[in-house]
């Protein structure tokens, strides 16, 4: 008898279901969502023998504990953390065979914030607009896990991971975010742009899946007021009235009225997802490729 399901024994502070998100609906006000550390989620899937876009669990700081009702292969990636199987140490960043009824404990992150737990077959909750991701801004997708939640699992593929263990970049001691200026850098004083490019910031504890908030010198505007609402992209560095840059992550709103001074390169966002509060942040402006863009 097969009972492809996963019982949540300990949900942890915030554990959500995530896949590659639901891009393509921003014009309806639907955030893209999806795993914040996408390369870590993709690696977990690869180690568990899943296709890249299978739904995984994203934990926040203190992990979670899971009991599969049938034997599964599990892989834990992202933030380094102790992994235990019925109390015995098991591998992090490698496939782990979990017998039916055994408890897999994903411990608190030693470094970083978010661990990814892929289970063979993938989490098979009902998709919403083509994605199983939990969207914390607009409430689409499954609710964050609670103790006792039972998650259905999909049929495992017959693929096997071709790696036993995979190297992963650890969370950086300093978060270096390459940015291209614009579209609203002209809403800031030249001094503000120098401050952004040269002064240290720190990751604020108010950060979440919607945005990475920072603490540091305020960016001074060259003009008052608010913009009429305009479309927002992943990685947009929005500057609210307090002047502290806020980097939009996967659950960001699709439109907004605060000026975007710059945009963080997508390749640097997975590291932003793992930067604990207090981590030093440096914004490094790089030139956009030369394009025939008319600026006035």
């Amino acid at each position, binding site marked *: 008898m097969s009972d492809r399901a996963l019982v949540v024994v300990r949900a942890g502070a915030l554990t959500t279901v995530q896949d590659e998100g639901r891009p393509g609906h921003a*014009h309806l*006000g639907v955030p893209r969502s999806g795993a914040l550390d996408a390369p870590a989620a993709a690696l977990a899937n690869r180690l568990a023998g899943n296709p890249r876009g299978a739904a995984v669990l994203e934990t926040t700081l203190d992990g979670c504990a899971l009991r599969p009702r049938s034997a599964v292969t599990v892989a834990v990636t992202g933030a380094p953390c102790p992994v235990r199987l019925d109390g015995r140490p098991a591998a992090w960043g490698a496939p782990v065979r979990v017998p039916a009824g055994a408890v897999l404990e994903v411990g608190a992150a030693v470094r970083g914030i978010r661990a990814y737990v892929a289970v063979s077959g993938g989490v098979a909750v009902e998709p919403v607009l083509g994605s199983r991701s939990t969207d914390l801004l607009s*409430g689409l997708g499954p609710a964050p896990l609670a103790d006792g939640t039972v998650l259905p699992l999909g049929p495992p593929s017959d693929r096997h991971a071709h790696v036993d263990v995979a190297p992963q970049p650890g969370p950086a001691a300093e978060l270096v975010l390459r940015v291209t200026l614009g579209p609203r850098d002209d809403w800031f004083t030249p001094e503000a742009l120098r401050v952004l490019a040269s002064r240290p910031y720190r990751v604020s504890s108010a950060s979440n899946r919607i945005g990475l908030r920072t603490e540091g010198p305020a960016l001074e505007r060259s003009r008052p007021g608010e913009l*009429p609402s305009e479309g927002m992209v992943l990685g947009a560095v929005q500057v609210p009235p307090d002047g502290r840059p806020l980097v939009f992550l996967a659950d960001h709103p699709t439109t907004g009225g605060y000026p975007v001074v710059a945009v963080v*390169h997508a390749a640097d966002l997975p590291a932003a997802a793992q930067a604990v509060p207090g981590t030093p942040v440096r914004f490094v402006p790089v030139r956009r490729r030369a*394009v025939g863009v008319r600026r006035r």
Partner: protein
Amino acid sequence: MRVLPVGPDALLVEVDSGDEAEALHAELLRRRAQGLLRVAEIVPAARTVLLDGLAEPDRAARELAAATVPSAVPRGGRTVELPVRYDGPDLADVAAHWGVREEEVARVHAATEFRVAFCGFAPGFGYLTGLPERCRVPRRATPRTAVPAGAVALAGPYTGVYPRSSPGGWQLIGTTDAVLWDHARVPAALLSPGTRVRFVPMDSAGRVGLPRQAGRVGA
């Protein structure tokens, strides 16, 4: 028309008015449908259209910089009728802003043909334009912590309907039972950019009573 870079593969195209933004949005959708523009997201807003996930951002930037804003807002598009009870708690405040009686707010609102200029704030929340300039109202000084689903509201030049219960600072003038967002439905959003919208007044018993100057509009 200004074309502003947004990171490596997105562009923000800015125009001078909401009408121009709607016309530009329609033109960009047409180009995408014809295969002339390869882009993941086209997001209209108040004065801009965002092109995110461009396959060829440089080429798109050059072409847009050389283009002119299409002149007319296209008149096509779906029409949606939303039954509404004009029973909102801010009806008196809105009437005071407009300098009219409450019944007149309902009459003008129900006689207006709205268009969804853009969506945002929440899945399925449309910013509807169409009210005359003199009908602008400010947001409430203190936002409500919970506005019920189906609340019909005004703020600035826009009217909108809350798809689900959420905090909100708009002035509430009425209530609709229409389901603005249902992710199990296709399409999930009742309103999308370009949709035409009419509010059809109902009394508290659910009977439809059209105000004199409002007529039904076919799709």
